[in-house]
């Protein structure tokens, strides 16, 4: 068994934000007071109370508009750098059955800046009052009673898929082959490094700068798995110094 994974087909996402709300509903996380920033993306960023966020990005390419949607969450890295950075016993749990990376209340004893800088996807957020660090936990409580994560259950379009890792890898590769016929630039984002595998229609940077690990400096094509691992390590090393 290689644990669980998500497969997220961004070519099917309509940004209805059902997943974002379903996540809050299950975890009973409060709403945030925001202002209109000129986009449907709301709240504007992840926070301690918003651990799942649908990002909206408009790109004009060849005088045609591309409206790219990106439901963002923790990627549950196969080798999670944040767990490596943890200095407090029991603050971060790498669940052996599912591969989920789960933060506990003990994260309040961690150095938040270090934990954040260790994340190639800019995910963890801290509660300014308690110091507890928060992010997606793969709905590990639901998994244990045989339910899928709240976001996956609620997805009406088939964007969000969840299951055994081999099954999701298989689904991802089949979907990629289909999508590439229409979108030649389509790609799977960091499939070997993370447990949340995104399928994009266009280059990952056109969605969000942190969709792909260190996307700003990573050439996207022709990288072997080994090189990608090295890139991930390199990103962490750069942030450290």
């Amino acid at each position, binding site marked *: 068994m290689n644990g669980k994974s998500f497969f997220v087909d961004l070519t099917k996402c309509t940004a209805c934000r*059902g997943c974002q709300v379903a996540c809050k509903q299950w975890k009973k996380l409060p709403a945030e007071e925001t202002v209109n920033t000129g986009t449907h993306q709301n709240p504007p960023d992840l926070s301690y109370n918003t651990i799942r966020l649908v990002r909206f990005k408009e790109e004009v390419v060849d005088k045609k508009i591309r409206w790219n949607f990106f439901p963002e969450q923790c990627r549950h890295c196969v080798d999670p750098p944040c767990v490596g950075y943890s200095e407090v016993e029991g603050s971060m*749990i790498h669940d*052996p059955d599912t591969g989920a990376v789960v933060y506990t209340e003990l994260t309040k004893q961690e150095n938040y800046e270090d934990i954040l800088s260790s994340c190639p996807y800019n995910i963890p957020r801290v509660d300014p009052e308690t110091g507890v660090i928060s992010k997606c*936990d793969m709905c590990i409580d639901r998994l244990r009673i045989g339910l899928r994560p709240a976001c996956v259950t609620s997805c009406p379009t088939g964007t969000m898929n969840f299951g055994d890792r081999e099954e999701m890898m298989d689904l991802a590769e089949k979907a990629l082959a289909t999508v590439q016929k229409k979108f030649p630039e389509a790609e799977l984002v960091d499939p070997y490094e993370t447990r949340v595998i995104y399928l994009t229609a266009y280059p990952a940077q056109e969605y969000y700068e942190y969709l792909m690990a260190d996307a700003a400096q990573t050439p996207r094509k022709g990288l072997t798995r080994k090189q990608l691992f090295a890139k991930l390590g390199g990103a962490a090393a750069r942030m450290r110094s």
Partner: protein
Amino acid sequence: MTVNRRRFLKLSATAAAMTAFGGLGCQHTAPAVDRATMLKPEWTKQTTTICCYCAVGCGLIVNTSLKTKKAVNVEGDPDHPVNEGSLCAKGASIYQLAENERRPEGPLYRAPFSKEFKQVSWKWALEQIAHRVKKSRDETFAVKNDKGQTVNRTEGIASLGSAALDNEECWAFQTMLRSLGLVYIEHQARI
């Protein structure tokens, strides 16, 4: 921040251990917060319902606390043929239809020409509604129209809503309205 050698080694060692043993080195398995316990029959009663928000009619599963009698979780019903568990953003938030601190706690009344709502009792409100409906209906009820055809209707009252009623409640509601002779009956669910 300078290179922290201790952390660097620790990171590398952890990564190596994870790769080699697939995470078996982790001793802790308990989740930080276990919300799934609340779904057990010892704590909650499970019922099904239909989303009231639009005409699609998605199926929902509601878990109600046996202790407080309040809904504790509402999500899509995976066995329902319409939505197979999925919900839109509005449907996914339906838990707050009942559980929301911003809900008014009782009926509010604004008197004619007044600028403010004031809270009134249900008894007073329901009696007022009954009296006014009866008065308007009796004053405007028409047995026949201009052509002499039997219509038995009132055009003096219209009904709009309610957005928070489900299919079965709407049926009972419109039956009552039609028995009064209303013809202007509208509902938000046609959007």
